[in-house]
């Protein structure tokens, strides 16, 4: 299990992941293995973001 934390907001970009892994990646694939989230979700074609409003 890996926990990722960020100040203010957390952005995941499809391009970045594909660049690091060398393999095509669909943002929605995350749905298979994410366990828990904290924050407001914004899911786009090429990115996934979490943020709080405070």
């Amino acid at each position: 299990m890996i926990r990722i934390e960020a100040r203010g907001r957390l952005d995941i970009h499809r391009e970045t992941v594909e660049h690091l892994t060398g393999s095509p990646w669909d943002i929605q694939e995350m749905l298979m293995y994410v366990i828990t989230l904290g924050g407001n979700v914004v899911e786009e074609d090429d990115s996934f973001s979490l943020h709080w409003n405070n």
Partner: protein
Amino acid sequence: MAVKKRLNAKEKYRCMTRDLDWEPSYQTHEDIYPHERFEGIKITDWDKWEDPFRLTMDTYWKYQAEKEKKLYAIFDAFSQNNGHTTLSDARYVNALKLFLSAVTPLEYQAYQGFARVGRQFSGAGARIACQMQAIDELRHVQTQIHAMSHYNKHFNGLHDFAHMHDRVWFLSVPKSFFEDARTAGPFEFLTAISFSFEYVLTNLLFVPFMSGAAFNGDMATVTFGFSAQSDEARHMTLGLEVIKFLLEQHEDNVPIIQRWIDKWFWRGYRLLTLVGMMMDYMLPNKVMSWSEAWGVYFEEAGGALFKDLERYGIRPPKHVEEANIAKDHVSHQAWSIFYQYSQATNFHTWMPTDEELDWLSSKYPDTFDKIYRPRFEHWRALQEKGERFYNPTLPMLCQICQIPLSFGEPDDQTTLSHRSAEHEGERYHFCSQGCCDIFQYEPTKYIQAWLPVHQILQGNCGGADVESVVRDYYNIDPGQDNLEYLGSTEHRRWQDWHPNDRHSAPANPVDPDLLKTG
């Protein structure tokens, strides 16, 4: 020649979901969606509902199928390799008996609840999210049963979980919790379950059971847990989305939602007593203490969430301070209940070993040695004399949470917390101010509660004595499923499997003939 444009995720989702909805032309809105107004919630514009995960059905099936393939392969590997023999200790399986009879039927209730509200909302986005969640919850029922089915072949107490959930005294605690939510209106249901249970409190159910499984060698349950949690992430976002949507739709919704947040925080917190007890007493390899779990997953994580909701005029739930204080007490109070009523449970109980008592002392430096260790040492001394204690009376249950009255006052945990209120000439009893408040807001609902102890005393549970009720009404196998762990069939079988393991030998050998009910 027209070029087909590939739709992006947002557009595809809209085409496959919202745009398939229509305005009714020959039936009224009110007739099609009759439950949307009676709670006083005002929706001005359903189009403001944001779908956090734009999951179309084809994507849903693809990913769920992938998860199922992987999960069942692990179940099979666990089974073929006799994974149950490499657990930390057979005592651990009693946590699974609690889980299967208490939690799995709640997943089924969740499926029923979300299927219902998935029909009752006039907003298409909300309907779709609820319908998918209903299917997820049904999946959780099935995968939990499959995970446990292997244990059912080798351990007791797992054989009739659905029947027991509907009848056994302590299982009315989870059962009544969910029935309260399902018999409420659709907006209260979402606030209770999607927001309060599946978002605010979810980690306090997930981390104890799944980490407990991981720490104790239970690969089947761990794998189920991770597989389900990927569904839960979607549920969490539904919970947060629904609360924001309702609070933004109309300012009149704010006090209604606040009242629901107060009620369901308290009901959820009381339900989690069972989990706290499991964490502190039923895991041979400990994950963390209940007090630590509450501190991290509620006090810290919940703090950030309620700060976010301040902008809507929402404050943290009523009685939250009381819950924070009681984190150092409830697990010990709960284990005391189950230890002494183990003649009527589908799982075994036991006194902690010396090592475990010392662990509890170190995790609860302000409360354990002062209040709880003396009673456990007393019970252990009785057990060593062959007088293992079983309480021969039946306890008073709280009218709301249905837990036996055994919690302490927040500022003095050595004084029993007890409230009562009259309604139409009858007196009703509660474990706390929190439960009393819930009753006083909707007494007509809660005077209808099916309280197991009242029902037994009224003769509605088959037998004239507890042993008959346990055997005939609960379908618990007396002498096999219930009573003390040490000397039980499961304990002796575990020792046969592990003849060289010093931990499987009892610290104080007990003559099985002396294991009698009180």
